[in-house]
């Protein structure tokens, strides 16, 4: 007969209440671990889903995700010509916020070439983009229906497909349009701005003494066109040909093309140890604080339970119970509370993780490690109770 189990069964509602409270705390610790993993997944999902080996960005920047980067669109062709490069595609990235039904809608807009790299990795509903203009694919998390239209920049875009699991470092879901559309959205100015630009260029040219009025009239539209050109990308993603030397290609691009070539591994490091470092530390600190609180709570519960059982323990000792029976009673109860609380925490997180606004990734290793930590906390917490129980004098069972 197991005394710890019998006690728990007799006072099951009290134990369940205690375990639910503790379980909620463990659920928070568990979800924070999931959010931490989600942060890393969000930070790297764009890299992994693109399948690129190299990211070519503006010189002296850490773009396109961690810093601003701009390259001419035709850089793609120069990169594609580098020996060892299998494929190169210009990509555009931008954070966007539009108003939808009076509420702000944030997302991370990716512009890609239809037969290039960087498109939606999976389509869960509808289809991929087929037309060069005014179609878009959105992540499921944006909660936009197929066929709905969104006004981005100067034009309306129809949602033709839904992807899933794609989010930026900031947790904003991805939306995809063609590169040409993304360039329009990001760089194209409206007619007023073009007129202003043209007037400013004409005015600047008029200050050049060697230009005649006729030349200024002819040159102004040409210069304006170059000034308001949208043929820019934020990065060129490239894959390597089999057997190509990554380092060699990186050095070659940096020396001859004057761009920075960042390997996917380096890009991952930039994202995880730079952009989300503080969030990681914050979450880690919260987890430590919450685990400490859990430890204190378990210790208090076990200590209180031991104090309440002083007479039972004294009686057991008086009728000849060895110390190990008394210690096992306390330790097993502590472990059972921890186990029940862990299961409750796991059930809560499993039932709710997909409803969190940000990605929560439950990794088996994290769950196992947390389970081990909870069990260790239970053992350590019970030590005070066990010490107290072993100090209880058998004579305390006597008297009224």
């Amino acid at each position: 007969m197991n005394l710890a189990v019998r006690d728990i069964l007799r006072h099951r509602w009290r134990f369940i209440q205690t375990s639910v409270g503790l379980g909620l705390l463990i659920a928070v610790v568990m979800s924070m671990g999931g959010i931490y993993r989600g942060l890393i997944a969000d930070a790297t999902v764009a890299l992994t889903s693109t399948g690129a080996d190299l990211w070519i960005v503006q010189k002296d920047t850490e773009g396109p995700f961690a810093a601003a980067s701009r390259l001419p669109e035709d850089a793609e062709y120069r990169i594609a010509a580098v020996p060892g490069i299998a494929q190169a595609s210009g990509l555009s990235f931008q954070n966007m916020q539009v108003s939808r039904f009076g509420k702000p809608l944030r997302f991370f807009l990716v512009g890609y070439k239809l037969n290039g790299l960087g498109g939606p990795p999976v389509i869960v509903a509808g289809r991929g983009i087929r037309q060069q203009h005014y179609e878009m694919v959105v992540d499921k998390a944006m909660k936009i229906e197929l066929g709905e239209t969104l006004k981005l920049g100067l034009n309306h875009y129809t949602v033709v497909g839904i992807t899933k699991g794609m989010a930026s470092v900031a947790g904003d879901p991805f939306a995809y349009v063609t590169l040409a559309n993304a360039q329009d959205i990001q760089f194209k100015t409206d007619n007023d701005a073009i007129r202003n630009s043209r007037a400013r260029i004409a005015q600047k040219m008029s200050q050049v003494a060697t230009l005649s009025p006729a030349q200024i009239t002819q040159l102004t539209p040409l210069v304006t066109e170059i000034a308001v050109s949208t043929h820019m990308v934020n990065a060129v993603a490239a894959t390597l040909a089999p057997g190509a030397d990554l380092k060699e290609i990186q050095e070659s691009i940096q020396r001859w093309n004057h761009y920075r070539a960042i390997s996917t591994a380096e890009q991952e490091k930039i994202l995880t140890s730079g952009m989300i470092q503080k969030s990681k530390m914050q979450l880690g600190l919260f987890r430590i604080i919450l685990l400490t609180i859990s430890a204190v709570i378990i210790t208090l519960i076990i200590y209180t339970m031991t104090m309440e059982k002083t007479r039972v323990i004294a009686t057991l000792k008086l009728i000849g119970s060895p110390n190990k029976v008394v210690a096992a009673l306390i330790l097993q109860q502590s472990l059972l509370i921890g186990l029940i609380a862990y299961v409750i925490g796991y059930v809560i997180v499993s039932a709710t993780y997909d409803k969190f606004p940000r990605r929560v990734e439950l990794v088996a290793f994290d769950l196992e490690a947390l389970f081990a930590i909870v069990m260790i906390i239970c053992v350590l917490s019970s030590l005070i109770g066990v010490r107290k129980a072993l100090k209880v004098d058998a004579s305390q069972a006597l008297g009224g």
Partner: protein
Amino acid sequence: MHAIEVKGLTKIYGKGHTEVVALADASLTVSPGELVAVIGPSGSGKTTMLTTIGLINEPTRGLVILDGITVVDGSWVPGLDLKRIRRERLGFIFQSYNLIPFLTAVENVIVALNLNGVRGKEARMRAVELLDKLFLGSRLKNYPTELSGGEAQRVAIARALANRPKVILADEPTAALDTDNGKNVMELLKKLAVEHNSAIMVVTHDSRMVEGFDRIFEVHDGRITHEPVRT
């Protein structure tokens, strides 16, 4: 052979000017099957006598032999497993029953058997048999809070008897019971002393409850003041 043999048992608390002699030079013997009472007012030393004989309190000096085993010779005999002696050879009955609240009546008896290595069906069978004898066959699955005072004390008696001890020590077993229930419990103890051939020592302050006991020891200020009275 006596079940309990006590010679010159003394317990002194504190030292110097704080010294209190709780038990002074007590000597007595109790034979198997004999029911004896130790009576006296509060603070007279009767519980100290019970706890020193029951291996809970280490005496200052004296000799105690329980069921043929010398357990105290000046002090506790070194190398003896006192807990083992308590669970194998002694049974305890308490004033407030001290049943384990989260165990049913039958489980409260089984726990004592389990401690002595009797497990499973055998433990359950013996516990049920004992409780049946004590007219508790219909209360096996009741928790202590669901039992009357008299029933709870009978469960406690069953627990004390579970391992067939040669010595049963009872500390004010009727103090929490009304007169009728108290008398019933004492009658039961008398019967069990003979049936189980156990020596039963009952400590009580209520001299009305010891009617029919084989012998009565009266304790005052730590001393047995009167020769045992055979009732």
